[in-house]
């Protein structure tokens, strides 16, 4: 069929508009990236867009020489690794036990966990709880409250159920117990969904900063996102920047400005996400559809 001129016009406008959308989405990232890779003194002249004028890694060098920032980066990596591994393993264990309808008290356990998706304790009751059980101001406050996610449990369980029964039953006949079946059959056969859920949990852990704000006071527990938040928050920024300036001057790095360091931290907080998110994207739609059917 011959295309009408209106259709061609529509296509052109559509592609133009979507290209504009891509630019609007990417520009802020590229702008800050250029800023972080540009000589700090040169940046003060202004006028930077998406390309560094005087290329340098000096701004990043500062992050890796400033103790508070190293500690924060280590804490971010630690909580992401520990939080992701523990959450995926525990949620998978629970999901496996709930694939067995003959489990003692199955109906009770099943609704007990599903209901947690709709429960919301609120900030203050949660705060009081963490204080009462001495989770407040410890590293575990990042890990234990996120151990199980009922939503992820449903996703995993749906996936576990697609593994052929014959495989599991023949293992039982050969004398295997549930521990063996879980670790040697179920987990290896579910790596795609485990990886997807793991990446989602990891992104959440890496991006989280509210729990640091609400439930910790110890400087040692600060994460990268929290430090960045403190620099943003204008009421708290002064002290931090002075501290940083003093530290920079001591090491003869006066050429670096707090603004440039801020851009470098922003990029360090962003890049890990940029690296992993293309891997999750092919499961996005599938995961969301399962969720919308079950949720």
């Amino acid at each position, binding site marked *: 069929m011959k295309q009408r001129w209106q259709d061609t016009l529509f296509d052109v406008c559509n592609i133009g508009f979507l290209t504009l959308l891509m630019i609007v989405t990417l520009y802020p990232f590229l702008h800050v990236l250029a800023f972080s890779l540009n000589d700090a003194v040169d940046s003060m002249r202004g006028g930077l867009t998406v390309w560094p004028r005087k290329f340098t890694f000096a701004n990043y060098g500062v992050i890796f020489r400033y103790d508070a920032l190293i500690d924060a980066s280590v804490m971010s990596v630690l909580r992401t690794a520990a939080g992701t591994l523990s959450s995926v393993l525990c949620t998978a264990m629970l999901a496996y036990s709930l694939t067995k309808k003959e489990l*003692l008290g199955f109906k009770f356990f099943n609704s007990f966990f599903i209901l947690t998706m709709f429960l919301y304790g609120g900030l203050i009751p949660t705060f009081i709880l963490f204080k009462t059980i001495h989770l407040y101001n410890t590293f575990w406050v990042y890990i234990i409250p996120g151990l199980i996610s009922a939503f992820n449990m449903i996703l995993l369980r749906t996936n576990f159920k697609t593994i052929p029964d014959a495989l599991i039953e023949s293992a039982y006949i050969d004398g295997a117990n549930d521990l063996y079946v879980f670790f040697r059959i179920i987990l290896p056969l579910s790596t795609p969904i485990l990886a997807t859920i793991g990446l989602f949990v990891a992104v959440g852990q890496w991006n989280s900063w509210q729990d640091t704000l609400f439930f910790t006071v110890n400087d040692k527990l600060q994460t990268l996102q929290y430090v960045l938040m403190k620099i943003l928050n204008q009421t708290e920024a002064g002290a931090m920047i002075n501290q940083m300036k003093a530290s920079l001057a001591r090491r003869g790095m006066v050429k670096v400005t707090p603004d440039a360091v801020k851009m470098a931290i922003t990029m360090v907080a962003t890049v890990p996400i940029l690296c992993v998110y293309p891997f999750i994207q092919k499961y996005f739609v599938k995961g969301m*559809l399962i969720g919308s059917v079950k949720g």
Partner: protein
Amino acid sequence: MNHVPSGLVPGAPRAQQQSSAWRKIKKQKILLLFCVPFAVWAAIFCYAPIWGWIMAFQDYNAGKGIMGSPWVGLKHFRTFFQEEMLYTLLRNTIAISVLNIVVGTIGAVSLALLLNEVKGVFFKRTVQTISYLPYFISYVVVANLFLTLLSPTDGTVNRILMKLGLIDEPIFFFGEPHLFWFLVVFINVWKSIGWDAIIYIAAMSAVDTELYDAASVDGAGRWRKMWHITLPCIRPTIVVLLILSTSGILSAGFDPSYLLGNPMVYEYSEVIDTYVYRMGLGNAMYSYATAIGLFRLIVSLILLYLVNRIAKKLGEENVL
């Protein structure tokens, strides 16, 4: 393997029943080990805080605990309703979340419609991949990106506006109280539009292609097909998502107001989330902050119920 039939045998003698239950526990010890500890976890981390709502009716004292603190009835609710800030808080919260819902839905549906019309697979996938990138970035980073972009000293936006001759002096965007809602809504939509569009795109892919063919035969153009076929077909999805989002009308989000708000725009940035945080954790008014949280929860539940009823009256599917 065929497991022993589940449940207790009704006719069997009691002793035998007990031993069979015991045998079952022994047999399932690994499965139970995979389940029971997490049930304890859920009881502590998901169910115990619910009990904490009682604090809203007490003068909670950390020394005495929930069991020992004196009861005060509805005192904290009364205080909240007489609070001077109440009007400002509710206005900001509702304004930001309603704008969010409206602009966010229109934006996501439009993006899905436009993407649905793209014929090149590569271009479509590229746009999608880029458009949901911001969803995965933390709000702290996003706030920093926009503070840089909109900065009065060297922000790109001010530079462009000056060059175009639209303004003579740089604007301090985050210092203008009246702009705050719109900036926050723009940033929220920028962050989530690509992600929100996914579900609409999925709904559109389920539309029967015969409908489009029939419309083409009748001479309908692209716009008419979008308006008369695609949109009506995804209406149920839109309605369900709208209903679910109305219950969150009193949750405008902690992140935007906390990260982007400052004393200059306080009058327009303070929302219930940040107020609960400041009162509860900042001033240690635990009971008062809990009461506000409970008030919000109750309003959400009522809204969810009402909207669901209205949708049912209008002939839409019942979502709950």
